[in-house]
């Protein structure tokens, strides 16, 4: 095992640890930090269940070494809600039946967060294109697209900047 130091900001909190160089970002988040809202579906870059925001942009954390995030800022699903109050995207998924088992949901919401910030007026086709790297095996995509469209009407992109900005660690 080869040990390395890592310093990252996760959901606006700074973490410093010593980790194995092989540790995948998703396992760092789930095992080391105990943030189990981020899921592992395929472990092969196909399903998007492990999607988190790295410096504000969605990546598949099963295909990123934790050390590649050194000095950067990460946002996970836990970083979106304000305490017990749901984030507008979470609320939209509830209202529009955007989930059944919920396994894919955190990944869907993270990519939706990025899409709405980038393109608040995304069309249904643009939403479908954006979530094309995220698989859902039970809900069907129509109600997920409905949820994201609904969320885009309630989320205020400017209010989200501080969620993804973090405090640059390095």
């Amino acid at each position, binding site marked *: 095992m*080869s040990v390395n130091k890592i310093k990252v900001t996760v959901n606006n909190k700074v973490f410093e640890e010593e980790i194995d160089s092989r540790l995948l970002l998703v396992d760092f988040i789930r095992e080391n930090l105990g943030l189990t809202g981020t899921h592992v579906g395929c*472990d092969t*870059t196909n399903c998007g269940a492990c999607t988190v925001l790295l410096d504000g942009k969605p*990546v598949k954390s099963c295909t*990123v*070494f934790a050390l590649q995030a050194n000095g950067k800022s990460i946002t996970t699903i836990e970083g979106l809600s304000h305490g017990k109050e749901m984030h507008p995207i979470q609320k939209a998924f509830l209202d529009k039946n955007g989930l059944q088992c919920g396994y894919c949901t955190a990944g869907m919401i993270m*990519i939706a967060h990025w899409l709405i910030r980038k393109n608040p007026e995304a069309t249904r086709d643009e939403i479908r294109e954006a979530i*094309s*790297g995220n698989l859902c095996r039970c809900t069907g995509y129509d109600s997920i697209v409905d949820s994201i469209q609904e969320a885009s009407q309630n989320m205020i992109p400017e209010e989200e900047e501080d969620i993804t900005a973090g405090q640059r660690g390095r």
Partner: protein
Amino acid sequence: MYPQSFEYVAPRTLKEAVEFLRKHEGEAKILAGGQSLIPILKMRFASFGYLVDIGGLQDLHYIKRDRDSIRIGSLARTSEIEESQDIRMNALMLAEAASQVADSQVRNMGTVGGNCVHGDPGNDLPSVMLALDAIYKVTGPSGTRDIPASEFYVDSYSTGLGEAEILTEIVIPVIQHGSGGAYIKQRRRAGDFSIAAVAAFVSINESGNCGVARLAVTSIGPINFRSKKAEEFLTGKKLSDQNIATAAQLLVDSVEPVADPYGSVEFKKEILRLVGIEALSKATDRALGV
């Protein structure tokens, strides 16, 4: 799935990175975005003693426009290529190809450099670099050198890059008035590699005929390659539907695809013919400004 153990190093300068690679030649591997390398390591198709993460070399992270060329630092992300106005205005086919690579998440992490030097014939950007006659600038222990994309690809996962060399920049000529390019990719599902894809570039000469034609192919055969036969046929001729169809047929006649889960030999040839026609037609329309 976990890779075999490795030592991780994150050099702070290009010089430091090259020096480390030289010292550990044969044992060290460059890590850029990791979107090709990490899956390979996780499946244990390969392992290395050292991973040299060049992701922190900010000097290699840019997209610049000169008078006649666009210079892309090797660490520019695929998603940045897709969104760059400079590239959309001056080399549209590159943005077109970048937007069809994998999915948003992979494009946010994967770099242009990694895409072009990995040597996977299914990768989309090498074909565009071939069609645009790009130059790869590399730095190694004995200094820097230029490798034309047309001389870079040797065999699957085998390129003209030395083990201690780093691709630093890709230079592509701006697509001038009277020229046009297009990238057409056929895939089974969103996010997939292609069954076949074609990058076409054409220019129109004073007599209204084809001045230059460059045609590069993805996913058919061991490397991304240009079809000299089809290019020679088109040069000097009218870019008519008939001539484009003949060129696409010459392209198909020059390949020997292998059957795999993407399709049978016949199926792949037919897809290649169709994407060839579509890419050439679209490039021609763009060159004519229609």
